[in-house]
């Protein structure tokens, strides 16, 4: 049994679990959901025909059909492309996003020896080395102090995918798309980092697991929705979400793609190579949703669900344990299951919101994006930091 726990606690296991249980299915389904959702918004039905015999599932199987089509399509490499970079570019687009997922806490810490009983939160707070808390499995692959900095650093690399694809394609339109991709990155990246700075100030941590697990204030339970950062950093949330949509290179910021004019940096790609760019875009949607859910919406926290059960009207005792109030104790396995589900639901809702934005707003021109990024988002982000810092200093005693 100890070996099993050790394997489960192995970082690669968690990463594979996250990627293959949440990210990949969600990203694949998003390709279908996007088409259905946009159709519904435009008073159409959308793709609902793909089927295996009588099994139709409202057309969900379209993503299987799409994948099969892309896999069996001719893998065409035009003459004069830089073959090495041309091959590398799709991988460069998708790998950083998959790597960045390792900072996401997608569930609570599991204590296998207490799985069937109510979690002993007092024991955990006062005596965490007790044998009954051994073999704990933390549902986050990479729990480090610089978590969100790591995400910024890694996800910026994904831009090289687009830029190199444009450069290697030996095509003027692709090159334009690649250059636009780089210039767009310049416009939003600074504002995106600074937009999260307020959240760092409030929580005092760059570690997404810590932000999700503790919330904004130590005087409230982290499961209280009022303790989640959307309330404490509304401007930061708005700015970060805007910049993050720019990061996914989707409408209204799909300037590098620009279907009606330049088609985009992947104009020369076909088959699964193009499919990888496509998939990378959808994985980025999932990732942005996961980050926003973790930082601003309490991550895996279910509203009013403390580690030992539902509780309303309690308080935090000196040990940092949420206690008293009206409560309903639940076994540890049920709490963790609910928290996994909560994270999934939050991510799905935020994905749906991104699709809503994508199918509502028209595309910005390149200069409008620069104006938005440099003249609106950046000053607002700086002001947000100033105001947050002042409030922290004056009212929270510099916490």
């Amino acid at each position, binding site marked *: 049994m100890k070996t099993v726990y050790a394997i489960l606690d192995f970082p690669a296991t968690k990463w594979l679990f996250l990627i293959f249980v949440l990210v990949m299915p969600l990203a694949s389904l998003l390709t279908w959901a996007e088409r259905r959702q946009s*159709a*519904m*918004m*435009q*008073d*159409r039905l959308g793709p609902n025909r793909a089927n295996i015999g009588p099994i139709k599932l409202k057309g969900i199987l379209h993503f299987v059909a799409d994948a099969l089509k892309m896999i069996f399509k001719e893998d065409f490499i035009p003459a004069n492309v830089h073959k090495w970079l041309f091959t590398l570019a799709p991988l460069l687009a998708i790998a950083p996003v998959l790597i960045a997922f390792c900072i996401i806490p997608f569930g609570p810490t599991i204590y296998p020896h207490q799985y069937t009983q109510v979690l002993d939160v007092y024991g955990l707070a006062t005596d965490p080395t007790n044998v009954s808390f051994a073999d704990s499995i933390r549902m986050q692959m990479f729990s480090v102090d610089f978590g969100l900095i790591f995400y910024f650093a890694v996800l910026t690399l994904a831009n090289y995918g687009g830029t190199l694809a444009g450069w290697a394609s030996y095509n003027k339109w692709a090159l334009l798309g690649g250059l636009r991709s780089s210039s767009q990155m310049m416009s939003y990246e600074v504002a995106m980092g600074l937009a999260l700075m307020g959240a760092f100030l409030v929580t005092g941590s760059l570690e997404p697991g810590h932000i999700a697990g503790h919330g904004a204030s130590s005087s409230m339970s982290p499961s209280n929705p009022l303790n989640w950062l959307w309330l404490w950093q509304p401007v930061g949330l708005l700015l970060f979400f805007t910049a993050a949509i720019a990061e996914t290179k989707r409408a209204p910021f799909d300037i590098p793609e620009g279907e009606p004019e330049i088609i985009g940096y992947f104009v020369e790609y076909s088959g699964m190579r193009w499919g990888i760019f496509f998939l990378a875009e959808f994985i980025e949607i999932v990732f942005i949703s996961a980050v926003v859910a973790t930082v601003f919406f309490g991550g895996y926290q279910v509203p009013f669900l403390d580690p030992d059960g539902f509780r309303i009207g309690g308080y935090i005792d000196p040990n940092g344990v949420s206690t008293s109030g009206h409560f309903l104790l639940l076994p540890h396995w049920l709490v963790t299951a609910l928290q996994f589900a909560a994270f999934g639901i939050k991510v799905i809702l935020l994905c749906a919101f991104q699709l*809503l934005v994508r199918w*509502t*707003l028209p595309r910005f021109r390149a200069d409008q994006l620069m104006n938005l990024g440099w003249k609106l988002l950046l000053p607002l982000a700086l002001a947000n930091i100033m105001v947050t810092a002042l409030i922290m200093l004056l009212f929270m005693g510099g916490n």
Partner: protein
Amino acid sequence: MSAAHDHAHDEPTTGPKVLAVADRHPRVRTIQVERPEPEDASFVAATTKGLGITLKHFARNLFLPLKKLTERAKPGAPDEDKWRAEIETVQYPEEKVKYPERFRGLHRLTLRDDGAVRCVACMCCPTVCPAHCITIVPAETDDKGIEKRPAVFEIDELRCVVCGLCVEACPCDAIRMDTGEHAKPVEDRANAIETKESMMARGVRSIATQGGEGPNWRDGKK
């Protein structure tokens, strides 16, 4: 040069306000107009409103029952239509839009009371056909009242422009385009040729009096 050019110099009465006009060439001039910033430069209000509209449509179409094709919204539809999805998609081929009565579809050849083809091979339709898609080979008949019939009557549906002139030209209601059917997709061009038999298979008896009204048509009876 003159009229057109002078006309171009008329100041526009509507449209954006002209700030400056530069004539660098007799035929080219640059007009600088006022481009006011959007009222809501932060986009927030407009974005929220737009998201509301799309969300409303999405929710309505997701949760409310679909209208049946036959009940699709007509202008002045009853109030309960507010609680129906607005989806306009027609689920072809399970659902089909009803064509208007005058829709010109595949040809058919009408029949006599005894089931023989009504056409008398007068050659009016191939003569009037602008696409030359009708081929008729006439043959004699034993019936002295009819004299001719088509031995071959073929229409190349690939050449047909569906103008309906053949129907107009026919003196004895022998050819019609009121089937409401499309030309069918084929894999071989030869299969796109409608033969006398295939068009007669779609045929019906014509209600026009057999052989015309006869010599006593002035009497008002058969």
